[in-house]
């Protein structure tokens, strides 16, 4: 059953149409990779899902609940918008860790702030914070970063920082975890450790959308691939089918550039 349903998304920046009629759906526990050259609209699509951009047309539904519908714009309370945002997690290309917090604090900050809204917060403050701390430590352990949890971001390598960012995005248990070119800002020798973590998340049936330029990785890990060009979905299909046997001319051309290189 589809956990995410994206219908007819359009996004304009001024007179430039960055996304044109983009539709797709994603099943629970599946991984979707979005490929395409720079400027094809992949990143904008992810930003629309995370409410960092507001689409001009179309709708986004998660678990059959409409989160966004451009035809029925409601004036949203900040509180409601925040709730919707939590359906999605986001890992940025440039990590965007908070520099003044340790790895562990980066992971636990949002959960702590959210806990303050709980009714039983005042009575159980200590217990709640201890639980959040345990949760954060477990997530960092899962990322292989137990040794590094009290380090500040600038004391970590790029690969370690991105793994902290993944733990931070997982902390609020989003339905769908999004990655915006998670390894593009990394030195080649550091991409492996991040891809390994993402692969293990896929093995654990985490629902994910990954914008990436790593074709071999996409073919290997993703269940489903979308190829975008000029703001439209040119082709979508299962990973192996799309990469090994592309149907559209534009897809073939794009992939050729990668396999030759």
């Amino acid at each position, binding site marked *: 059953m589809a956990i995410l349903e994206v219908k007819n998304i359009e996004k304009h920046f001024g007179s430039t149409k960055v996304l044109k009629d983009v539709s797709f759906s994603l099943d629970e526990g599946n991984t979707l990779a979005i490929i395409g050259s720079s400027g094809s609209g992949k990143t904008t699509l992810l930003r629309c899902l*995370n409410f*960092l951009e507001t689409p001009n047309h179309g709708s986004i539904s998660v678990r059959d609940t409409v989160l966004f519908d451009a035809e029925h714009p409601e004036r949203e309370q*900040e509180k409601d918008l925040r709730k919707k945002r939590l359906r999605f*997690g986001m890992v940025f290309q440039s990590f965007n860790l*908070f520099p003044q917090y340790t790895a562990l604090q980066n992971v636990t900050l949002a959960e702590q702030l959210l806990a303050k809204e709980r009714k039983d917060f005042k009575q159980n403050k200590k217990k709640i914070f201890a639980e959040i701390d345990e949760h954060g430590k477990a997530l960092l352990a899962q990322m292989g970063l137990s040794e590094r949890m009290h380090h*500040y971001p600038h004391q970590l390598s790029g690969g370690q920082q991105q793994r902290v960012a993944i733990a931070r995005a997982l902390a609020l248990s989003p339905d769908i975890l999004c990655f915006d070119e998670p390894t593009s800002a990394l030195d080649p020798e550091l991409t492996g450790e991040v891809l390994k973590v993402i692969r293990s998340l896929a093995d654990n049936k985490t629902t994910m959308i990954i914008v990436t330029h790593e074709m071999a990785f996409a073919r290997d890990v993703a269940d489903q691939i979308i190829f975008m060009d000029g703001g439209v979905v040119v082709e979508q299909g299962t990973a192996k089918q799309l990469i090994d046997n592309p149907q559209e001319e534009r897809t073939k051309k794009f992939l050729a550039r990668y396999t030759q290189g």
Partner: protein
Amino acid sequence: MFWTVTQALLSGLATTFQIFILTLLFSLPLGLVIALASMSKFKPLRYLMQTIVWIVRGTPLMLQLIIIFYGPGLWFDNNIWSGGTAGRITATVVAFTINYACYFSVIFRGGIEGVPVGQREAGEVLGMTKSQIFFQITLLQMVKRVVPPMSNEIITLVKDTSLARIISAYELTFTGYSFVKAAGITWPLFYTGVFYLIFVGILTLLFNYIERRLDYFR
């Protein structure tokens, strides 16, 4: 004589310190307000602020001080500043506050704009509120960025207080110079310099401490 000079300079220092502290107290928050207004999405407000900052930064502080102190009496026949020391100090603080708030606003704006957009976005996707993002994420990064340029401005402020002598406020430099005129002795001028050096020295230590405290992140 030494004791007389010391006592006089200490009382001058009291005025200098008063101008310094009050100016800082008012111009810091005002500077933040002007910074936010000059980044406003509402264009007329933004242009208005930019114009004010241009005028205030583009004219001498001494001229501003003269206009603010003598202006009301000259043009409206209504000297709103009482003629005594208190009135002169108040006028000085008003002129200095406006002037320094404009300089601070530019520094603050740089500090706010210097925090990468990605920081705010990371907070947003984690479901934080606007105020949580400002207080938990942006603020400290901004403070870290503005400390070095602010320390420069604040040290300049210490010495700018000497401009108050133009409207006959008995601050430190005025007092030191008065001995040259009245008694024909010049060494109090150097002694006055020592007062400023100690004042600025203490501030420098304070700023170094703050910078060190914020050194744990980048």
